[in-house]
């Protein structure tokens, strides 16, 4: 599963709805509880731990990718 597929799976939407530039506003299921599941799934999948500040910033695929790459995650 690539990053977009993982995000789509957690948010329970069709994989094609999540692209490299998708943001939280575009996905109706991306609410605050889904945000927690997403953070938890990203941490579990990539074996990393976000800071509290990062957890709140992860509201779009580009930002998620930037934060993950800053942690040397290949995604």
């Amino acid at each position: 599963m690539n990053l977009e597929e993982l995000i789509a799976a957690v948010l329970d939407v069709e994989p094609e709805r999540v692209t490299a530039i998708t943001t939280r506003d575009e996905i109706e299921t991306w609410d605050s509880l889904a945000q927690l599941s997403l953070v938890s799934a990203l941490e579990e999948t990539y074996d990393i731990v976000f800071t509290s500040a990062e957890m709140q910033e992860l509201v779009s695929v580009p930002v998620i990718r930037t934060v993950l790459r800053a942690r040397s995650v290949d995604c």
Partner: protein
Amino acid sequence: MTATPLTALQRRLLWRRVSAGLTQTNGTTVVLSTFTANPLEALVGAALHTEGLSTKMVTGPYDQIISECLVQGSETDLLQPNTVVVWPRLEDLWRAQPLPLVDQLSDYSQMIVDVAVAAADAAERWKATLVFVLPAQPELRPLGVGDAGNPVGVIAAWESARLDVRTVLAGRSGVLVADAEQSVRCLGVRAATDPRTLTAARVPYTDALFCLVADDIARLLRLAKFGARKVAIVDADNTLWGGVVGEDGADGIDLLDNGPGEAFRAFQSWLLELRRSGTIIGVASKNNEADLWEAFGRSEMVLNQAHLAAWRVNWSPKSQNIAEMIDELNLGLASAVFIDDNPLELSEVGESLPEVALLQMPIDASYWMREIAESGLLDRLPPTNEDLGRAESYSAETQRRTVRERMTPEEYLRSLEIAVLCSDPLSSDIARLSQLVAKTNQFTLGGYRHSESELRGLLADSQVRIRMISVIDKFGNYGVVGATIVRSTSSGSLLDTFVLSCRAMGRGVEEAMMADVCELSETAVRVNVLLTPRNLPGRTFFESIGAFVGEEALLSSVRWPVHVKRTISE
């Protein structure tokens, strides 16, 4: 044999597939807690599915255990659940008090005892099974390392509260008790708790912890529904002792101290403990029978022939031997657990007798207890009241009576000493209001959400009245929890927005907000409630005051609830 446990994400995806196919006939499990327990929902759902007990899952409103249990017509009451999971945290119940330091321990256990009794009473009314999760040890301990020695400190109060809860719940039928502390121990505090999600969303625990607690909940419900397994059938070579008696001879097998032999003897002692609690022990071994009994004759053996209810010592397939023994004992195959070190024997039995549960003795016998405990295959519930001759505990009855006397729904609400302040926001309040409007999903009209800049525009509009709602009760200050927006139009007042944080639901705050709206409006207020997937609490409230989905209501006389104090602005 234990498979690799699924990750939290795998469980969530599994649950999504499974839950789509569930209907009312599968029954409903409601989770109630003092913290945000929504992440637990899918994990319990998946764990129950794995145990063959799929039900629909619902997370009840945040921090409303007692009112959900006591108030007729509460969200949970309306669902008439088959199973209720109740999980309070002591930190949350103790919010109104300083942490235990010098006061009596009973000051710190009464609240959780009230929660437990209210939950058990409600479960009885709903004919539901209650799974009460005993709280884990609070992490905040002002004395730090010194708390351990304080007989009225945090740990002492936690221990005494748990004991009191166990005592009031013991012997009540339909009540199961799980233990969050057990799971925290298993993971360690750092892997079990997450301070980030606690501050961000009042989720105190990690998915890893929720997975373990979910598994325990499912195991308990499986035990309650299908009963404990009654027979343990064990292999002999490399299971009861180290080595193979047919090759090493009775003198050569390992039952010695200070080494693997000691682990095998510990396993035998544990089989005797099982036997004491009612489990039947059998042996299935591929050996010459004479060799086997010679090994049993070793003085270090803990188990002896008299402890065995059945045995088969021959060269036939083990599945055949097990089936014969189960038949001889007049039991069902599903009541048996087969323990062997040899994966080939286990899979032979598994293929022929799929109902029999399988447990592999680890290659390093020292780990036998961990394997068994983690498998849960030989777990049992405590003896029931029926078993003990209905010796209902006097203290439990007394506690229950007190709570009934003390806690009618009205009295409960009154005891909260809620005060609501409805005020006109300043422009500095708009950021908070906009956050509320954006984040509130459950208690809304379901209509359009204004953005922050739109709210600033509305604040300046003389035809619009925005109200900001702050709440305080004896447990503390909730802060700004709600907002209403009313527009004056040529056809009278229109309720444009109504949002209330779930933290403050179900305590009369919503009535107070609508009373405020009605009082400020010169005409009756037009209310349109829309249906969204998440706004059931909002819809339920508006229905109760006469505003139904899909038809415009005119409201003019919502009363300020008597138990809610009115705090006057400025």
